[in-house]
């Protein structure tokens, strides 16, 4: 029988890109939330946490509207890059980023909040700017949070289904990720291959979580 690796490659490409971009967005967002004194902080927190509780179909439905040729994001994208956002890999990345945002932001937020204010102030009085303090004092002392945020965002992107189905469809090599492939296989009663795919995802997810807990334990001991 033929075994198609393509959906897995696509899944990991999507997850890796999403995670990398989420670090860029999640770090400033979490830093802001950890330090802001604004009264509407709960509103921001609620907005970021929304993807945790909204059914993926609801999110996917709104994404589909926004990403379509007539939607505000879709129209902008088409003008900028010359192709439509819905049913494209770009669209999947964007959707995944929003969908996985809380999985990145929450660990980072608790990481920032757990940093002893004293070492930050010590760094300031030693003449170091905010950025240098962030880079050399704050981030190195929240490695556990950085790791957890990245791994959870990655794993959650690998595991997402509903949103991808809504905005990606199932275009081989473009938007057909592993979770969608399993769905297709089950639909066509190809249980053998579905077992293989599901088994791989199952093992992968378990291995990732075990790794995170083991590493975090080691960081705690230090």
């Amino acid at each position, binding site marked *: 029988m033929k075994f198609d690796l393509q959906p897995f490659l696509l899944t990991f490409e999507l997850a890796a890109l999403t995670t990398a971009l989420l670090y860029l967005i999640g770090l400033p967002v979490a830093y802001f939330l950890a330090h802001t004194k604004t009264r509407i902080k709960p509103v921001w927190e609620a907005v970021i946490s929304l993807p945790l509780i909204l059914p993926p179909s609801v999110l996917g439905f709104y994404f589909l509207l926004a990403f379509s040729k007539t939607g505000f994001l879709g129209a902008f994208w088409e003008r900028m890059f010359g192709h439509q956002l819905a049913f494209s890999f770009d669209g999947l990345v964007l959707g995944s980023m929003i969908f996985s945002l809380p999985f990145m932001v929450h660990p980072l937020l608790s990481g920032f909040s757990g940093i*002893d204010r*004293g*070492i930050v*102030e*010590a*760094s*300031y*009085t*030693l*003449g*170091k*700017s905010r950025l240098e303090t962030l880079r*050399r*004092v704050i981030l*190195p*002392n929240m490695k556990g949070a950085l790791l957890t945020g990245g791994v959870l965002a990655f794993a959650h992107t690998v595991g997402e289904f509903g949103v991808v189905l809504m905005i990606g469809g199932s275009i081989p090599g473009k938007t057909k990720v592993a979770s969608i492939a399993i769905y297709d296989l089950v639909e066509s009663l190809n249980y053998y291959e579905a077992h293989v795919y599901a088994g791989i995802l199952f093992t992968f997810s378990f291995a990732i979580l075990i790794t995170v807990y083991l590493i975090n334990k080691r960081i705690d001991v*230090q």
Partner: protein
Amino acid sequence: MISISVRKPLLGAEGSFELAVDLEVQTGTFITLFGPSGSGKTTFIRMVAGLETPASGRLSVNDEVWFDSAANINLSPQLRRVGLVFQNYSLFPNMTVGENLRFAQGRKDEGKITEILELIGLTGLRNRYPTTLSGGQQQRVALARAIVREPKLLLLDEPLSALDTIKRLRLQDEISRIHSLFHLTTILVSHDKQEVFKLSDKVAVMEHGRIVKYGDAKDIFLEQQTSNKFSFVGTILSIKPVDIAYLAVIGVGNELVEVVLDERDLAGLRVGDKVLVAAKAFNPIIKKI
């Protein structure tokens, strides 16, 4: 010359009060802020470091204005060149002792780091991480880190309060040595009388955000000096009958004192009581130990 005049409303345990401090400190002086906790000492020192902003006032160090509410000047902590030592050390856990010091340096100079580590007796700990050090060692590193930046002003916020007596005494000597060796101007916050007396040239007693007494340590703490009275507060540790009298052992600071009591003295005294041990009209003898 450092001249400070700052105001800021504070919220204390007994309601709000205003921190209002006016202070002039000669360069090279070791000055201590002494007073009960909650009197605004730490807030004051944080204002000097630039970590908190006064509501109004002016602060200048050797003719350089660090804060002036009228002229809208407020130098960031990064630009103030202070060495601040915190009560809980605040060393960077991700850096070794050597790296903590290197981080503090503006212009990299390994020779200077080696020199300071040697001076403070930390050479052997250069490659150790802060979490593997004792409290006393950590505070030495914090002190070294504050010095390595060649600060104009050394600020010590209850630096020794978390240490036991022996370590505290040793570090007091260390601080005193560093202060004179580097010709520093030092502001210490402390509520340990012995420590304040031992280290300070000048003492400012703070209560409710204000300096209520200012002067030489001797004048502030030894007001009764001329009465030739010798008195300490201690705790009765044991009382035992000896022949017709009683012998009480009293702990004063870290020392034990034996005092002979008769039946009348004994009335109302119990082990654990706080007592005043006083003697009048005699000349204390001191011996080198």
